[in-house]
C-alpha cells in the first residue's frame, strides 16, 4: 500500500470550537461509510481553513472566500466525489458572500460547513459579518446567513449547530452529508464555533441558542412559517439551532450534466472515442 501524507495535528487554540466541528465531520463521514479516497475537503482561509490538513482524504486549501465556486467546479467535474467545503464566517460571508448567494441559488450537491465565531481570529479579532453591532469598533448590524438562505428560492438545506452541543452537531453534520450524498443539493450547515482567544462566546451562546428541534410547533419544511419564526427568534435575541429548513429542489448536477456520459473527470478523452461527433462539429463550419 502506498503511503501518503500523515494528517496534521490541528493548529487551533485549546478550547477552540473547530475541534468539535472536525470531530463531528470525521464521525459523520465514518458513520455514512464515505470513503476517504472518494472525498475531498475544500477549505477556506482563516483558522478553520486548516481543517483539511487534519483529515485523511483529498484536501484543497482554496483562495480566500472561494470555497464554494471551487467546490461547485469539483462536484460538476466529478459528481461521484463527496465534496465538502469548510471555512469561517469571514471567508464565507464577507469576501465570499457573493458566492454563498449564488451557490444557494445553484444548489450543487456539496456540503458546506461554516465555523462561525463572529470574529476574525487569525488576524487578531477584527469584526466579521456576524459580529454584533457594538463588537469592538463594529457599527454594522450582523448578518444572519440562515435568513439569507431562507430568502433564496433555490436553497434546499439550512441548518445551524453549536459546538457546545456535540451530539446534535454530529446529527446535523450527518444529515447535511446525507442531503448532498443523496443528490438533493446544497447542504449548508453553520456551526457556532467560539473563538476562545478573541471572541469567547461560550457563555452567551449557551443561553442564546434555541433548539428548534425541541419545539414541536417548528416546521422545517414550511419555509414561510419557518422564516417567520426565525425572524421572531432573532428579534428576541435568540440563536436558532437545529435543522432550520429542508426543501426539495433539483440539484445542479442533475440538470447541468449530460448523464449519458460518466463523470467528466472519469471520461476517456482519447479523440478517437468521439471522432464522429467532432467530425460533425467540424462539418457545421463547412456549410
Amino acid at each position: 500500500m502506498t503511503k501518503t501524507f500523515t494528517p496534521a495535528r490541528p493548529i487551533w487554540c485549546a478550547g477552540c470550537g473547530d475541534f468539535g466541528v472536525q470531530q463531528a465531520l470525521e464521525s459523520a463521514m465514518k458513520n455514512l461509510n464515505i470513503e476517504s479516497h472518494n472525498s475531498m475537503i475544500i477549505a477556506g482561509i482563516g483558522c478553520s481553513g486548516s481543517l483539511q490538513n487534519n483529515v485523511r482524504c483529498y484536501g484543497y486549501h482554496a483562495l480566500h472566500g472561494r470555497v464554494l465556486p471551487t467546490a461547485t467546479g469539483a462536484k460538476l467535474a466529478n459528481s461521484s466525489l463527496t465534496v465538502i467545503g469548510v471555512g469561517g464566517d469571514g471567508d464565507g460571508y464577507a469576501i465570499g458572500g457573493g458566492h454563498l448567494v449564488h451557490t444557494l441559488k445553484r444548489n450543487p450537491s456539496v456540503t458546506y460547513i461554516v465555523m462561525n465565531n463572529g470574529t476574525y481570529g487569525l488576524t487578531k479579532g477584527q469584526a466579521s459579518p456576524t459580529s454584533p453591532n457594538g463588537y469592538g469598533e463594529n457599527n454594522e448590524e450582523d448578518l444572519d446567513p440562515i435568513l439569507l438562505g431562507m430568502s433564496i428560492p433555490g436553497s434546499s438545506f439550512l441548518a445551524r449547530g453549536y459546538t457546545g452541543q456535540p451530539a446534535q452537531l454530529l446529527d446535523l453534520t450527518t444529515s447535511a452529508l446525507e442531503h448532498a450524498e443523496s443528490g438533493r443539493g446544497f447542504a449548508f450547515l453553520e456551526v457556532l464555533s467560539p473563538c476562545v482567544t478573541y471572541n469567547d462566546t461560550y457563555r452567551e451562546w449557551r443561553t442564546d441558542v434555541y433548539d428548534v428541534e425541541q419545539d414541536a410547533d417548528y416546521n422545517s419544511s414550511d419555509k414561510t412559517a419557518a422564516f417567520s419564526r426565525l425572524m421572531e427568534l432573532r428579534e428576541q435575541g435568540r440563536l436558532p439551532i437545529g435543522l432550520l429548513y429542508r426543501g426539495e429542489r433539483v440539484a445542479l448536477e442533475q440538470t447541468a450534466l449530460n448523464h449519458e456520459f460518466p463523470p467528466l473527470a472519469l471520461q476517456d478523452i482519447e479523440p478517437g472515442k468521439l471522432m464522429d461527433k467532432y467530425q460533425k462539429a467540424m462539418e457545421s463550419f463547412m456549410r
Partner: protein
Amino acid sequence: MNQETLQPNLEDLNVIVSGQGGDGSLTVVNLLASVLRKNGMSVYTERDVLSRIKGGITAATLRAFSGERYTIGNHIDLLVAFDIDAVPKNLRQLNKNSIVLYDNSGGPLPDGVLGDEIRAFGAPLSRQAVKTFRRDIYKNSISFGLIGRILGLPDDTMRISFEDRFKRMGPQIMKYNLDALTVGLSLADELGYVEGKGLYRIQKIERKPHMLITGNEAMAFGFSVAGGRFYAGYPITPSTDVMDWLIKWSPQFGGVVRQAEDELSAINMAIGSALTGTRTMVATCGPGLSLMQEGIGQLGMGEIPLVIVDAQRGGPSTGMPTKPEQSDINLLVFGGHGDFPRIVLAPGNPEDCFYLTVDACNLSQRYQCPVFIASDQALSQNTATIDPLDLQRVVIDQGKRLDSATLSEVEVYKRYLFTEDGVSPYTIPGTPDGMSLVTGNEHDEFGLVSTDPVNRVRMVDKRQSKMKTMLPHLPRAGRFGDVDAKIGIIGIGMTFGVILESLDTLADRGIDAQYFQPRTLWPMLEETIAFINDCDVVYVVELNAEGQLAGLFVREGADASRIRKLLHYDGTPIRSDAVVDFVVEDQNRALGEEEVA
C-alpha cells in the same frame, strides 16, 4: 469584343456594409460570404460594432480573395450604407475606384461628403421595405439584389443563397425575403445594373470543402477535441463566443459549461474542476483577466493545470469593449504576485487557434501550470476560411498522472515530490491511497504548510525549473517570406494576416522581408531573440501604446537598436498599408542617412 470579356475576374473584393446597429449589415455580409465561398474564394469578415444592443453606426466588412488572406484589404470596393452617417464614417477606406450604394429613403447624400471621383448610387431601400413588407428590416434583403448585380452575381446564384439561408426559418419568411430580393433586382434594373453587366466575372475556383470559422470558435473546438470537458466563464466581449460555442456543443461530448457570477467564481470553479483531473478552460479579456489574477497565482503555487484564453480588447479598465488591442501582454507574462511558472501562447489565425489550444491543454497538464492563449478581438471574432482541421493530429498527453496501478509501485506518494525536472507525479481524487493536499500556501512535498527557509528555496526552485524543462516542448514560431532577408517583421494575433499581406506588397516594391510569428511568448524561446539579433532591422507590429511585445524581447536579450516599433492603438484593426508604409519610410530614411554618411 462584347461587354462580358471586359469584366475582370473577381480576385480580391472588399465590401463594407454599414448602418445602424440592428439594420442587418452582418446578414448581408454573411450571405455574400456564403455565395463567394461556394465559388471557391477565401473569405474573411470583420465586425465593427459598439457596446450596445441596437443603434449607433456599425459595420460588417467582407474580403473575398482568390488565394489566402487573413485580413481586410486596404481599399474598399463597395460600401453599402443603410444610414447616410455610415458614409463619412467609412470614407477613409474608400478610393477613386470605390462604389457607394446608400439608402436614400431619407434624402440624397449631402454634397461634398464624397469626392467627385467616387461613384455613388442612392436607392430607396428602407422606403421600399416598408412599402412592400411593412417591415424596415427587409431592406437588407433588398440591398442584396443591388449588391449582387453591381458585383456581377447571377440572379440564380443569389436566389439559391437566399433559399439556403432562410430555409430553416419557415416558408413565410423565405417568401418575403425572396420577394425582397426581387424588389432589389428591379431597383438595380432602374440604376442600369442589369444581369451580366456587373463589375466582375465571378469565376468558379475548384476548392475542396473548407471551414468558415472564428478564432474563438476554433479555440472552443480545439479545447473540446483535446478532451476539454469543463468550461466556466462570465460573459465578456469579445470572449463570450467561446462560451456560446461550448454551450451548444460541449454537452454532446459529455462536457459542461457553467456561467459563473463573476470572473473570481469562474476561475475558482475552473480550479475545482482542474483538481479532479478534468481538462478545463476559461476565456475572458482584460477586465476579467484582472479579476482572475488571484486564481492565476493559485494555479502557480498549487501547480494546477488550466487553460486561460485572453481575447484582448482596448484597455485599461472598461476601455473599448468591442475593439482589438494587444495591451495585456505584460499582464499575461508578469501578472500576479510572487514567482511562478506559466506559458503564454499566441496564435495567428483560426487554424493556429485550434492547434495551439490543443497544445495548451497538453502543456497545462504536463507542466501543471497556467497556460494562456493570447488572442485579440479581431482574431477571436473575425471569420476566416481555412482548410479542414486534421483531427487525427490531436494527441492527448496528461503528463505524469498516476492511476491506481502506477501509484501502487510508489512507496510514498508526495503531491509535490522534488524531481529532477521539477514536475511531480499527480493523482486525481477518487484514486485509493492517492490522497494529497493541494494548497496556495507554501508547502512541503506532501502539501502541508511550511515556512521552512530551506524547503522554501527548494520549492520555489522546483516550480521555476519547470520553465526550463518545458522549453524544448513549446510551440515554435511560424516563419514566412524570404528566410535570407535581413529585414524582419514580428507580430502576433490579428497582425498575422496583416503582416503576411505586407510581405507580398513589400516584395512587389523590391523590399525583401521575412515574418517571424512567435507562437510561444513565454517562456521566451531562444529562437525569437536569435531571429531579432540576426536581422539588420526588425519591425515589431503591435496593438498597444507601450510596445509591450518589443519590451519583452529587449528584456530577454534582443538588441534594442535593431527594433523599430509600429504601435497601433486607435481601436481600429491595423491594415497592411500601415505596415508597408512604415517599413518603406524607415528603409528610405535609413538609405538617406547612408547617403549622407
